[in-house]
């Protein structure tokens, strides 16, 4: 195991004191260290939001791109480089709202990516508007009459779409979160963790205490490989919130398998000269 300090997860942040993103970052640094990864072996793609600032607050390769667009560039990297550990990290607004189309299609692609969604059930950075997972009863500055749409259930969505690894965790359960992160990074294929992450400034409903009272860890008797069980489990929310691996499918082809022409090659290591392409010209003769 490498020393977690090489990740510099103690950097100063612009997050509010008490924000759930802070312990999340600590868990991530420890998970990476326990997996014996060096900062240069990991790349993190994020969108825009509080969660999406993560690459600035931890030392790994970072791509802090556009709101909602964290997943597509990670696909570009998956083509370039089969060895890099690729993590996508963003808020639930970024991921399920602005970037909804991308998560939908990347579940279909099943790229080898670990996707950590900081789900604080609110738009943090823009100061407290409803996100796709905000509870219906909440009122906000832009939704004074309450939320106009039912909450999105990311777990059910991902299970139903056949995502090959679907988990939920909570920043208040650090060991659990770390274990989930490691399992997701190890998973060959697309791994989603919806991470309950209290926003202490703007979400006065879903607080640490609120989650603490409700979350429970799935036991050994839970079989995440059974689709029917998982889809039922995915509906559980409210008084009891399951955390753990909700669904998992092994052996599903990953995105790169669908591009046999590149096999295991690291395209990033290949640089061809123009004269190597004469055949393209000859075929037009």
């Amino acid at each position: 195991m490498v020393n977690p300090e090489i990740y510099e997860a103690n950097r100063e942040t612009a997050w509010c004191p008490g924000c759930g993103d802070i312990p999340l970052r600590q868990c991530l640094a420890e998970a990476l260290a326990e997996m014996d990864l060096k900062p240069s072996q990991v790349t993190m793609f994020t969108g825009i939001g509080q969660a999406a600032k993560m690459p600035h607050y931890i030392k790994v390769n970072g791509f802090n791109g556009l709101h909602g667009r964290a997943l597509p560039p990670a696909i570009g990297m998956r083509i370039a480089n089969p060895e890099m550990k690729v993590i996508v990290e963003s808020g639930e607004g970024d991921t399920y709202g602005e970037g909804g189309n991308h998560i939908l299609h990347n579940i279909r692609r099943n790229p080898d990516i670990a996707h950590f969604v900081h789900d604080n059930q609110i738009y943090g950075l823009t100061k407290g508007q409803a996100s796709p997972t905000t509870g219906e009863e909440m009122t906000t500055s832009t939704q004074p009459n309450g939320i106009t749409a039912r909450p999105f259930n990311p777990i059910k969505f991902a299970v139903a779409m056949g995502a090959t690894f679907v988990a939920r965790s909570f920043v208040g359960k650090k060991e659990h979160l770390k274990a989930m992160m490691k399992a997701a990074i190890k998973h060959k294929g697309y791994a989603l963790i919806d991470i309950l992450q209290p926003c202490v400034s703007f979400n006065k409903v879903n607080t640490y205490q609120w989650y603490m009272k409700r979350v429970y860890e799935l036991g050994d008797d839970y079989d995440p490989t059974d689709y029917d069980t998982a889809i039922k489990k995915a509906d559980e929310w409210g008084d009891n919130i399951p955390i753990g691996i909700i669904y998992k499918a092994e052996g599903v082809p990953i995105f790169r398998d669908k591009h046999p022409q590149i096999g295991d090659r690291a395209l990033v290591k290949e640089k061809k000269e123009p004269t190597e392409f004469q055949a393209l010209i000859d075929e037009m003769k």
Partner: protein
Amino acid sequence: MDFNLVIAGEAGQGLNTLNFVLSKILFKSGFHVYSTKDYESRVRGGHNFMKIRFGDTKITAPKDEQDILLALNKAAVEIHQDFVKEDGIMIYNGESYEGELREENQDKEIFSLEAALIADDIGNGRVANTVFVGVLLKLLGLDLKVAEEVLGEYFRRAEDIKGMNIDALRKGYEKAEVAKRRFEMPEVTPRDNQILINGNQAIGMGAAVAGVQFYSAYPMTPATGVMNYLAKRQNDLGIVVEQAEDEIAAIMMALGGSYSGIRSMTGSSGGGFSLMVEALGFAGIAEIPLTIVNVQRPGPATGLPTRTEQADLLFAINASQGDFPLMVIGVKDAEDAFYQTYRAVNLAEKYQMPVIILSDQFLADTEINLEAFELDTLQRYNGFISDEQAEGISDYKRYEFTEDGISPLAYPGQMTESVVLIDSDEHDEHGHIIEDAETRVAMVDKRHDKIEKLILEDLEEPEYIGPEETDYLLIGWGSTYGPLQEARELLEEDGYNVGLLTFSDVWPLPIEELEDRIDNTVSIMVENNATAQFSRLISSETGIMVNHEIVKYDGRPYTAEEIYDAIKEEVID
């Protein structure tokens, strides 16, 4: 000396194959070939046509007047009969033409042939179009040798189909014996080292030769041809073409590839390019190399999906919020499209910024013969630091301040002791978010310095054709190049002193050649859009007001005669 042939019918009648086979036969025989497509946004029915212009000298533009009309249905005769020359001929697909030719066309020969019957006799209804190939070759006085080779190659995978096509070809040749009209072809001999290629293929080929390893895009006419070209060859080339879920994903995937160290590119037409706009500015601020091709079609919104226009110019130059370095190249013909795409990919990496290639449907679908591209004249510009350099770095700064604004470029994983951080927020040298005024100004200036360098080292002045002293100066950009060349020649034949200045690099705008040539002449801007956008760009950048603007925005390309007539009417008379 040149001849014009139109093949017309409805979608689904096999016009594309017919056009391909005929162009290839003429090309292989040694003719210069120029073929254009005019098609509707539908898969069956409607009215489509293809024009093949061919001859013994280089051809740069389409022509309206036709020597031969091959009409695959009745509508084709109705629509095109006026354009057939007095001494031309119409070949009609049917027992006899049931319609009435218009008064003025009564004397034009119409030769009817029920190719379907012949095809059925041979045993495959689908060889009917090949019967017409035989008919045409007879009328043109060409022998069947080259045609048999071309068909043999085209149907090489199915021996029986190949045989039936060759039968059909010979039957057509025999049947045409009774047609009256014969054409005298100039002597041509097949030339080595020529290729037959359209604009989209040239862009795809330019990208591949430039070492593009990843092309992500979402289908949109008329840009899909670039994607098709690369996808068809991805297995041989060992590269990846990925169909993204939308154009935002397409450009972001390409940016991810580029950040990861592989040459990446995306492309679309105006609608898809519109969706890419936020990411375009992101490439600018994050300093990620990216080549984007916009194969224009008439807009706005869905516009005319299968037609042509040059109306995305000012939008492309101004796309995305904020100030950032950007280069826009309007490609002029298939040859230019190849070399410019190659250049764009290299410049994008050299300056770590987005480069947009503006093509259009006219150029995309126009197939021409060219001298084979010379690959050994091309230099690859490697923008990344070497692996040896990378090893020594312990504190990599993606946005390090340098003399020319270009920071050393490394990809994630290249350095064992350092990481690569890029950011769409304003950032410091390491790529970390900043808010302070000083760093902000320094970073905007740094990015701007790259453009200054590009202007000095890499910007290309427009091409000038014509005499040193002119009475008239034609100005254009991009794909009007070919028709403008022929129009200039037509005017010259009338005794006028005419020059032609055509731009490929349009942003940043090269101004030296223009400023040198604009005085003491009558300047005429010719553009394929409604508001003379390039004219507006020139006046806003230089204060120069051209004397006349000729525009066309009906979704069709210019012919040389159209430009010539417009100049005669609007300028000279």
